[in-house]
């Protein structure tokens, strides 16, 4: 008799436990992927994260894909601060934006982004707090400035910052073969031809 009662009690406890677990699980926050995937997402998708060399500034690049265009949003944040949107741009869908590894200047005041299209790569410089870089523009795009001044070279890659205001980039000769490295001096928006190549 006692054994049967014990079995019934055990069965009751297991059933109660199972129901309780199910109810608890249903009330817990659920992964939202299925719901989000089922609907067109109104929020941008995180594409890339970046970080300054001292770890104090974190960057997040998000994209919102449209039919023919993509909207890009960059946020920057410091420890214990809410990230702030510092740049937004809508571009044709065949152009992508990325955060290079060495994007942030050594003093954490500036950063550059890489913008790759089917026929051209551009580099945009902006301030990490979102303020305008010049009187007329929030950003400075230096690849076109460079092509105007040095039509015999094309930029192959901007690798990082050689100093506080100096972006290092390598070039190829238009005629073929590797070209020299340059610094783009952000403070004077000028180019400095280097004797060493920064491979």
């Amino acid at each position, binding site marked *: 008799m006692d054994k049967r009662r014990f079995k019934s009690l055990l069965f009751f406890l297991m059933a109660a436990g199972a129901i309780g677990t199910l109810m608890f699980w249903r009330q817990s926050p659920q992964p939202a992927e299925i719901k989000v995937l089922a609907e067109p997402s109104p929020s941008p998708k995180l594409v890339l994260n970046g970080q300054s*060399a*001292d770890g104090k500034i974190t960057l997040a690049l998000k994209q919102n894909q449209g039919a023919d265009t993509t909207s890009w949003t960059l946020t920057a944040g410091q420890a214990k601060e809410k990230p702030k949107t510092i740049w937004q741009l809508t571009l044709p869908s065949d152009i992508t934006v990325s955060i290079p*590894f060495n994007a942030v*200047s050594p*003093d954490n005041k500036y950063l550059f982004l890489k913008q790759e299209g089917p026929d051209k790569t551009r580099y945009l410089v902006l301030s990490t707090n979102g303020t305008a870089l010049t009187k007329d523009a929030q950003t400075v795009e230096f690849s076109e400035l460079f092509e105007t001044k040095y039509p015999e070279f094309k930029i192959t890659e901007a690798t990082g*910052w050689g100093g506080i205001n100096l972006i290092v980039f390598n070039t190829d000769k238009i005629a073929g073969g590797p070209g020299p490295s340059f610094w783009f001096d952000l403070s004077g928006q000028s180019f400095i031809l280097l004797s*060493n190549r920064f491979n």
Partner: protein
Amino acid sequence: MIGKRIGLILLLLALALGGIIFFKPKQTPLDFSLKVENGAMGVFHGQEVMPPAIDLAAAEPVTTVLGETDATGEKHIYIDLSTQTLTAYQEDYLFMTVPVSTGKWGRTPVGEFTIWSKFRATRMSGGHGNDYYNLPNVPYTMFFSGPGVAAARGFALHGTYWHNNFGHPMSHGCVNMRTVDAEKLFYWAGINEKITIYGQAPL
């Protein structure tokens, strides 16, 4: 006969002088000690640089994640000059792999070394003319030495606040690391930790 001897002596002197100039420490602290100089300006490639302030009271090991502290066995740091990468292992456990900047204006030595001293910050200076640098508060400095590389030559792994071009040679012989990576390595690696530097830096 005397002329030949004098010539030989002059030749040896010239070779010795050349050797000293070629192999002199490329990025040397004024002395090997802890130096915190908050507010002092630095110079790198003709530009003034404001070093980050160092707060020794706040200095403590960075938080480790589960697993990192469980690893046991010998620690070893590898630096591949050809890929400009630093990799740190404890036995088979990979602790970190990060891009670094090794010698461009001075050669980074290759071989087997050990860390002989560590400082939360120190001052480094050297170079001449456009190449002159004088940098206070160089963070998380780990000096290394080994066969053929005396401690007095001042080679080190350290954090870097004057450039951000990692993955490409940018130093006067030391191993420049992102400060965030140098901090992590500084609190992981102890005195006598082994370092192997190999490969050839991109020209």
